[in-house]
């Protein structure tokens, strides 16, 4: 990577202050243009973030100096009401957005508008407002007190939940792309031919998740399968894009949740089966039961159980929340979930395949796919009911 001070650095220095000369800007733009496109994008985004930070700082400063009078806040609330219904009513799902909307509307305004185009009516309205003020103010004070505390409480709860999520998000490192070179990628390369053979003649949609750099997916596409891949790590996705493959950017579980029941003719799972939490692995299998057609093939491309002892995989082993399973463990889980024709095929250099066929889907599997507590899927239905 060429040495280059970041755009963000420059923005916070005097060089990019209000008095920056046009020459300086042109010089910056020329130097930025020499970077690789991806680096240019990263620079631009970093610069934008630095500006947003400047805006936040400025707003905080003005707020602390009392430069935003309450009357302004009230007017702005009115302006926003012309544009947006309440967050929840608009179908908004983003917590921050709904919280902001709630914060904006959790206020009862007793300053009732009194304007009227009819003669005398405005006077009557003003009089009524004055007469009712003692009563309305009393009610509004109680409501505003309650609403303010409620919003405050939600804010505290949000901070606590965010802290919990941060502490217990076992997949965080996978999401950051830190684990780009994985045992799974090696397993895919070692088993690509065998997977293509196992799925040959498959008619219908085939998903490879995670597809890494696309080696295995390319093999399936070349064999004439209607296959596509899912990958969350940007750098691997770019490598796969260069092979002209059908790809989606995103996580395996998130993608599977959006797939229609019984719509896949085959599913190849890789990566998630080696290093994610047990819960996530079982969730993937539960999704597989739901999204695969009856008798469709499930292929697990697995690193060997001792792959994480290999010094080449030391960093991945240390940072991953899970460890590769032995074939017997997969056999146990797949059997419990109702898959049939379960076989495993070890290869000479470690990685192995687990092949299974989807049985007719039981109704409770479809319901469980949405559940966080996927381990209950492993209990027999009768026990669960009890």
């Amino acid at each position, binding site marked *: 990577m060429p040495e280059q001070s970041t*755009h963000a650095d420059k*923005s916070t220095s005097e060089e*990019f*202050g*209000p008095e*920056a000369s046009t020459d*300086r*800007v042109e010089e910056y*733009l020329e130097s*930025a*243009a020499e970077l690789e*496109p991806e680096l*240019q*994008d990263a*620079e*631009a*985004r*970093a*610069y*934008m973030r630095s*500006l*947003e930070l*400047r*805006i936040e700082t*400025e*707003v905080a400063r*003005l*707020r602390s100096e009392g430069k*935003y009078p309450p009357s*302004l806040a009230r*007017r*702005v609330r009115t*302006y*926003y009401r*012309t*544009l*947006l*219904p309440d967050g929840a*009513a*608009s*179908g*908004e*799902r983003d917590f921050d957005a709904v919280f*902001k909307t709630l914060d*904006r509307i959790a206020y009862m305004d007793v300053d009732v508008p009194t304007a009227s185009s009819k003669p005398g009516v405005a006077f009557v309205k003003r009089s009524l407002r004055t007469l009712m003020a003692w009563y309305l103010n009393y009610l509004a004070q109680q409501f505003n007190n309650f609403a303010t505390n409620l919003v405050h409480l939600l804010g505290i709860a949000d901070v606590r939940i965010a802290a919990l999520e941060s502490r217990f998000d076992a997949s965080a490192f996978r999401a950051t792309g830190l684990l780009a070179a994985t045992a799974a990628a090696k397993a895919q390369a070692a088993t690509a031919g065998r997977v293509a053979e196992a799925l040959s003649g498959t*008619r*219908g*949609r085939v998903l490879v998740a995670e597809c890494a750099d696309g080696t295995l997916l390319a093999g399936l596409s070349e064999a004439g399968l*209607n296959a*596509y891949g899912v990958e969350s790590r940007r750098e691997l996705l770019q490598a796969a894009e260069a092979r002209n493959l*059908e790809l989606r*950017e995103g996580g395996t579980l998130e993608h*599977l*949740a*959006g*797939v*229609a029941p019984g*719509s*896949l003719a085959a599913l190849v799972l890789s990566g998630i089966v080696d290093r994610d939490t047990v819960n996530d692995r079982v969730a993937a299998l539960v999704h597989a039961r739901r*999204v695969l057609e009856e008798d469709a093939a499930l292929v697990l491309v697995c690193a060997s159980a001792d792959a994480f002892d290999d010094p080449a995989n030391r960093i991945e082993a240390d940072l991953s929340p899970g460890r590769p399973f032995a074939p017997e463990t997969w056999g146990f889980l797949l059997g419990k979930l109702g898959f049939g024709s379960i076989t495993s095929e070890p290869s000479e250099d470690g990685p192995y395949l687990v092949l299974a066929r989807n049985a007719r889907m039981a109704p409770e599997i479809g319901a469980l796919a949405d559940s966080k507590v996927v381990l209950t899927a492993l209990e027999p239905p009768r026990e669960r009911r009890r």
Partner: protein
Amino acid sequence: MSQTPLLKLAYVVPRYGAEIIGGAETATRMLAEALVRLGRAEVEVLTTTALSMDSWANHFPAGTDTLGGVTVRRFAVDGERAPNFAAATRRALAAPAAQSMDEAAELIRMQGPVSYGLLEALGAGRYDAVFFYPYLYHPTVEGVRLVNAPAIMHPAAHDEPVIDLPIFKGVFAAVSGFAYHTAAEREVVESRFQVAEKPSIDLGMGFEPHEGLGLGYLREMGIEGRPFILCLGRVDAPKGTTLLVDLFREYKERNPSDLQLVVAGPVYIAPNPAPDVHVVGPVSEAAKDELLSECSALVSPSAFESFAIVLLEAWAKRKPVLVNSICAATSEQVQRSGGGLRFDGFETFEAALNLLTRDASVAAALGAAGQRYALSRYHWPDLIDRYVAFIRRVMAAEASKSRLS
């Protein structure tokens, strides 16, 4: 050497014409004309004779016409917007998911336009693929199941209550592929409808950079000689123009300067008059180019967009943009490009506007980032290459499905 045969494609859109300025309608026309211009497809548009989306009243003559190399087949409107549609919408959208299928179907019919001639022609047509743009209207809701070719939808969806009407589940399920404007739009669709396995593309929209300097339009509009920020598109409260004018009035009271706001586009709901605000109505392409060339920044105040071509047009001229952070699509465009800033209330609007209009280096750097982003991803030839490859992939998948059945 044998050449790949031209694709024969059809687009279904509620209204169509050069006079029509609207997200989905303009986008359809741009895509259709680019496919023809670049010699990649023969394109037919199946549409109604309506011009106004408020009434869907018959306006254009029914029949076949050619516009920009595209064959346009217009069919009479049999069902205009029902007079009680607004009241029915308010009732239904209080709990959209709780509506029955019949109630939802009735609401879509009341919304209009209903054209049985269009639906009949759609069933009889022979095309390689048929595109529906956007998801919301009767021709799409009824048409997706009638076609004899792969149905590809450009949903133009955003997070709005109406998308939760139960009728759309079947509509989205019946489609063979999806062309999304942004990843945010994909998320809106895939989080509601289980269609993630279907072929799809995050396409966006192409644009053609134009020159537009010194043509005299600014003088005609009375805005020459003073800096201005620009808002382009439909002038309507739901599009955020009323909010923008209100915020700008507050801004000018607190930050006296000679800065102006120019709002250009067809006026549906005029904002309240305010000093230094010019609502200039619809403008020609040439006038739009000059406005974009001369503005300090472009503002997109809308909370409900699935893509904003105007951002690309501003970036093409190295202009920074300011968008409403509530809008996932424009927010994503800005975040990916680094070509602008976002506001989520008056405070951030004020601070961002100060930064954009008082610091030339900030505006220049953001504008340059936006320009690079727009030119590298949304230049027509590259975008159409990606689009055609996607169309052929959907066709191949459908052909393989047919062989199987």
